């Protein structure tokens, strides 16, 4: 039943030639989307928690809207709309980066919201009693604790994000999966290439989630 699986075509040269470039893009995309997503996600979360209707409504619509559309469709939407808005064509890679920042902001905002709500109200009152402004209170009291509470969930979301970057396949951007895909097609060995891709993703994501679990334990003890 087993067909001939030939691993010999997988060499360092091949990995360097086809996969490395894609891996770096996946990594860059993950890092930028995480940083941008946390930044805009925090803003969205603060808007939703502000209690002012004109801030709550748009943020809620944005977050729920993003979360009810498949990521592939969001990627396609941005690839279509961004060139129309800025008036000139844009590469698949640049479009992917904008998409993921916008998309992940919605998901990170939900994590941040839960994190901010997990900070006891007494902390906010204490800050106010010390005469802190809203900005100082958020920056010095609430957000540092919220980030700490949410760190494991935040990192888990980043691992999911790293896996989701494979979906830029839809617009032909060159990520890690695409690297394996192209290598497999060039050498006529798609079976081995996809297996190798699966192993690569598994090793990376499994070790990262193992690390997150350890971190979680550490943080839990300190608290």
């Amino acid at each position, binding site marked *: *039943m087993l067909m001939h699986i030939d691993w010999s075509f997988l060499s360092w040269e091949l990995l360097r030639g086809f996969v490395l470039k894609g891996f770096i893009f996946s990594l860059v995309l993950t890092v930028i989307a995480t940083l941008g997503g946390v930044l805009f996600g925090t803003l969205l979360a603060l808007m939703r928690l502000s209690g002012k209707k004109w801030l709550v409504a748009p943020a809620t619509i944005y977050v729920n809207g993003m979360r009810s559309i498949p990521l592939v469709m969001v990627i*396609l939407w941005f690839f279509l709309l961004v060139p129309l808005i800025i008036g000139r064509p844009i590469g698949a890679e640049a479009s992917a980066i904008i998409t993921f920042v916008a998309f992940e902001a919605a998901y990170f905002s939900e994590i941040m919201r839960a994190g901010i709500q997990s900070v006891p109200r007494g902390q906010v009152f204490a800050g106010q009693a010390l005469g802190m402004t809203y900005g100082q209170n958020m920056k010095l009291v609430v957000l540092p604790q919220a980030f700490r509470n949410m760190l494991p969930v935040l990192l888990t979301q980043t691992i999911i994000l790293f896996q989701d970057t*494979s979906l830029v396949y*839809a617009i032909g951007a060159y990520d890690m999966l695409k690297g394996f895909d192209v290598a497999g097609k060039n050498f006529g060995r798609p079976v081995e290439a996809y297996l190798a*891709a699966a192993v690569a*993703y*598994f090793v990376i*994501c*499994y070790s990262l989630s193992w690390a997150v679990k350890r971190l979680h334990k550490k943080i839990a003890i300190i608290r």
Partner: protein
Amino acid sequence: MSWDWQVFCQDTITQEVAQSCFGKGGDITYLDWLLSAWGWTVSVSLLALAIALVVGSLIGTLRTLPDSPWVVRLGNAWVEFFRNIPLLVHIFLWYHVIPAIFPAMKSLPGFVLVVFALGFFTSARIAEQVRSGIQALPRGQRYAGMAMGFTTVQYYRYVLLPMAFRIIIPPLTSETMNIFKNSSVAFAVSVSELTMYAMQVQEETSRGIEVYLLVTALYVVSALAINRIMAFIEKRARVPGMIAAGGGGH
């Protein structure tokens, strides 16, 4: 920029606008095609959901069995395998790799392979929910079942699982909505579902915005419908006086 919704009434081959918006005889308009694409999305999702529920419940239950560490480890391995590899890679594995290893599966259409890929992928997530649902029950429930002289199968069937499944309805709802969203990844192996439709028709008609808007709307409608159905099930399955422990609902 101006709207052009007439594009959906066009014939897919001649590009002529059909009077009724639906094709006659063997002809199909873009609207006909859109509805059939929606049908594919719904069938992929529902069939994958069926597989995911059966396999996920089984694996999730096995992971809570007392005194069988190897069964638990096997269940954990299943969950880790699916959680740490992207869905798109799973779909490629089912579409390109598995038929190469088992030649008998070469004749299966891509649709079936995608259903299996999506079903097994989601089963790992449902298994995780079922496990946490069972473990959220007070330990006394299990011991009470044992003390009544139930066999393991019996106390799972009559004591633990009925409560566990009620507890996990809210996360199960979002997982069901996720299946509909994740079915969009089937475009990668040319199953003609909504996302594939969006990509192709956008290219053929260059009316991307109108096409994407309708496709997106159909995804949202499908997700909302699922949400309402699950809310109904949750309401009907409610045990009087018990549901507060299950975390409320929507």
